[in-house]
């Protein structure tokens, strides 16, 4: 999947104009991802309801804003004089966030989330080599990892099999994005501000056959009988249901799917390399 997307990215860059004011650009910056994830909201709510009487601090309703760094490489078309501005770029960014439930004896259930995006987008607007403003459209290949650990009273952190919910779970989906960017600065370096919204993944139908729900990285748990009481190889939305009957839980599609979406705000620098101004 990722190979096909990147091949598409390469083709896009191939046909982009390479004469005159075209140049390779390299962007790097810091971003905030303000997102909603209905699946994790249900998981947090379910966990809080189950353990409310033993709680010192409940899970927050959802993850707090994720933050992280990213980079992109692409072709920019811009002139010294004001006019058409185009930028086709592809790159990667990683955002992190976490949510913690604390028991009254100070042991903790921690869920950390890493959001990895490979994005390819196109900006077409107005500007020159010093300033531009442009709407952005593109798509994301999103690959998330959820680290579900338990922290004991002595500080030991475990992803082991002794707790049913422990594990490291991944999910991958493809989604679109739209937004805008503004850049200003000098000829070879611009400060870029971007606001891009990724929307709900394409083709989300919630069917259990699809590989878009959070699954454990390996078959660590396959050696355990898949009956009541065995560790989970996925993150359930409804925990009591999962604990009561795991097979029925799977049949009922009781999985947390990758369906987060929201606004990405980033600020960074754009370096214009191999500038050709003939």
């Amino acid at each position, binding site marked *: 999947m990722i190979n096909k997307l990147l091949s598409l990215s390469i083709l896009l860059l191939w046909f982009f104009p390479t004469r005159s004011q075209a140049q390779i650009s390299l962007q790097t910056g810091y971003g905030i991802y303000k997102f909603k994830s209905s699946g994790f909201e249900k998981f947090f709510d379910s966990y809080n309801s189950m353990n409310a009487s033993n709680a010192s601090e409940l899970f927050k309703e959802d993850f707090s804003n994720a933050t992280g760094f990213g980079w992109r490489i692409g072709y920019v078309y811009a002139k010294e004089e004001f006019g058409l501005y185009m930028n086709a770029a592809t790159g990667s960014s990683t955002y992190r966030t976490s949510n913690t439930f604390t028991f009254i004896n100070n042991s903790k259930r921690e869920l950390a989330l890493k959001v990895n995006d490979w994005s390819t987008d196109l900006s077409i607007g107005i500007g020159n080599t010093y300033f531009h403003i442009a709407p952005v459209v593109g798509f994301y290949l999103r690959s998330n990892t959820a680290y579900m650990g338990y922290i004991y009273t002595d500080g*030991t952190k475990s*992803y082991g099999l002794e707790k049913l919910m422990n594990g490291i779970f991944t999910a991958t989906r493809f989604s679109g994005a739209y937004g805008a960017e503004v850049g200003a600065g000098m000829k070879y370096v611009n400060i870029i501000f971007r606001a891009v919204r990724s929307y709900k993944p394409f083709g989300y139908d919630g069917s259990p056959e699809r590989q878009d729900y959070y699954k454990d990285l390996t078959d*660590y748990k396959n050696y355990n009988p898949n009956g009541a009481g065995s560790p989970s190889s996925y993150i359930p939305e409804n925990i009591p249901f999962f604990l009561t009957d795991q097979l029925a839980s799977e049949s009922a599609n009781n999985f947390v799917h990758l369906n987060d979406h929201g606004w990405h705000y980033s600020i960074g620098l754009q370096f214009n390399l191999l500038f050709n101004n003939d």
Partner: protein
Amino acid sequence: MTKQSYLTFLFLSVTVLFSACDIEDRKAPQLYGGNGKWEIESYESISYDEAGAITNKSTLENLGYIQFMSSESLFGLYGYRVGLFMKIDSMVNNEPIKYTGYFMEYVYDGKRFQIRGTRGTIPIIEGLYTITKDKKNRKEFQIITSFEGTPVNDIHTRAVLTLKKM
């Protein structure tokens, strides 16, 4: 084709190759790299009471060594590779040295490490560990070996396995 196109193609090709590898495949060379031999420096077991205070502590040493190999096991699809665990008992009370070997498989994803026997259970060290120290020549893994009680009133035993590159 322009110079820019060549550079872009090279950069993205390297990225594609890197992205295509599973994390277990990227991490495993840290164990099987070089001669792949790691001494089990120590195996420390620590028990805690409900308040998190230590109630018992013991350490086992000279347990032997592990030979990690790059070959995939039957579960290679999931990143498992084969290895050999060799337990060497030194001379005790003038008794001869004993060698005990176990075929094993392992997987290592940067956060967790699992070792298990392919023909029977490896005593003491078999299990799914959480990685706590990940140095080039020394690895430390921990595992909860027993757990009783409730989340707010638990008694547990933690074991720490330390490997040192030979």
